[in-house]
């Protein structure tokens, strides 16, 4: 659609601008302020320049957390995206009771408060009272997510797959539903195989929504806090301490305001940079599609 130039449209955007400025810019400025100062208490601050940034960039602890975070995000993206597409291809296409039921049940995990997701899996994975833990234990696996870091990782990854694959399913399903029947009929006349229908009709049509899915899953998994906090509390040791958990520990637990602020800014910039790349690709593919 062609848009009309109209500078007065700014007045319509103004409320959003003021509100978001209040809840984003003021706090962000506080963070910037802390990141270049040190304090001995009593509200006396002095300028330290970029010292905290250097400390954070060279900190072993942050590197480890970043490594774990990147690995986690990579693993869950490579499970959730293909699995989500696969399930979406099998969603019922005709409207009816069965398809409504599928939609509601598939969407349900997304609406559960994140700490409850944590609680659910905390209970489900325990070897004394949880179905999963109990079964694995009885089958002879050495499974205990509070002590074994491999088990802790496995639990958190399965939890995230359980929690968020539905998002990918729903997005892909929306993409699939927008494909007109004529495309499939044409493919049938050409005697296209199931694979080439997927590769040349369904996948290109889903490209837009899949990009949104990857973008959302990337952002949210990179900021994950609540679920691992409830299930493992970042342990055993530091095995599941992801970036947000580390940050909250540093800022609110130890009250190291300077390093925490510098850490925050770097963290935010990393997310911003990668998201910007996705966003640019998305806008371009939007334009190509017209």
């Amino acid at each position, binding site marked *: *659609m062609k848009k009309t*130039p*109209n500078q007065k449209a*700014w007045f*319509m955007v103004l*409320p*959003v601008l003021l*509100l*978001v400025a209040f*809840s*984003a810019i*003021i706090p*962000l400025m*506080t963070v910037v302020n802390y990141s270049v100062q040190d304090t001995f208490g009593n509200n006396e601050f002095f300028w330290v320049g970029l010292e905290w940034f250097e400390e954070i960039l060279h900190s072993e602890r942050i590197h480890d957390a970043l490594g774990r975070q990147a690995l986690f995000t990579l693993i869950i993206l490579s499970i959730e995206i293909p699995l989500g597409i696969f*399930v979406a291809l*099998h*969603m*019922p296409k005709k409207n009816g009771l069965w398809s*409504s039921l*599928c*939609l509601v*049940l*598939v*969407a*349900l*995990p*997304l*609406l*559960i*408060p*994140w*700490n*409850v997701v944590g*609680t*659910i899996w905390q*209970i*489900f994975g325990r070897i*004394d*009272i*949880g*179905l999963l833990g109990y079964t694995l234990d009885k089958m002879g696996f050495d499974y205990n997510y509070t002590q074994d870091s491999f088990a802790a990782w496995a639990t958190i990854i399965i939890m995230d797959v*359980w929690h968020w694959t539905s998002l990918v399913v*729903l*997005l892909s399903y*929306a993409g699939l539903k*927008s494909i007109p029947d004529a495309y499939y009929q044409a493919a049938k006349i050409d005697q296209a195989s199931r694979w080439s229908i997927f590769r040349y009709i369904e996948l290109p049509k889903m490209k*837009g*929504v899949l990009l949104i899915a990857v973008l959302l899953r990337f*952002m949210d998994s990179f*900021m994950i*806090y*609540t679920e691992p906090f*409830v299930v493992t509390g970042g342990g055993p040791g530091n095995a599941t301490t992801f970036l947000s958990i580390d*940050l909250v520990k540093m800022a*609110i637990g130890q009250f190291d305001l300077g390093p925490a602020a510098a850490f925050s800014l770097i*963290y*935010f910039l990393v*997310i*911003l940079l990668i998201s910007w790349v996705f*966003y640019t690709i998305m806008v371009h593919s939007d334009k190509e599609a017209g």
Partner: protein
Amino acid sequence: MKFNKSALVMILYILFLMLPIYWLINMSLKTNQEILSTFSLWPNQLTLDNYMVIFTDPSWYGGYINSITYVIMNTVISLSVALPAAYAFSRYTFMGDKHLFFWLLTNRMAPPAVFALPFFQLYSSVGLFDTHIAVALAHTLFNVPLAVWILEGFMRGVPKEIDETAYIDGYGFFTFFRKIFMPLIASGIGVAAFFCFMFSWVELLLSRTLTSVDAKSIAATMTRTASASGLDWGVLAAAGVLTIIPGALVIYFVRNHIAKGFALGRV
């Protein structure tokens, strides 16, 4: 044959999704003694005591009331500022519009962990700490950009000729917006409201940081109880089950638009 295979995949996937939830419900209907002493797939002595604890103790049911209060406040605030903005983005070009749009989105990308401490200080200094409105405002940080994004997607689908015809027929902007435009994008507004509700409802970190007693959210109540008084598994499970119910109800109402909504109106 093909239908059967699809149905099988769906049944397996849904089974995978429902099993942990079933287990939570199972726990919530058992006594603590039974939870810890015997392992069974269903409650042997069915009890509603855990739910009674929640419905009679103000520190528990108060949590639900507080959560619902700030979630509704947040939804109303987010939608009322996002509607005109989304209209502007979908209809007009103006100086800096693309940058502004991306800047709004960056707030959706901001880790709440980054904002927890500054929010705490900001709202304490203006005397809003431990009020519903503080949490509602804090949640606008990620809900307003999302609402703008979703609504813009839906509004783009409405042809501009409709606006022009309405103006020719003598409608003023506000009458046009209320009487003609809003009904046209009603499903978009519903979906945006659903998302504001959802993200405000599921969030823990900010709501826990910004409240202590008077406006304490149910999520905060659950995590604090878990750490304070040992673990009362039955009550914790019951509280969890009760937090799922509002979500399930909301999904049911928007089920036909949900897929398009998750695609942010961009299909």
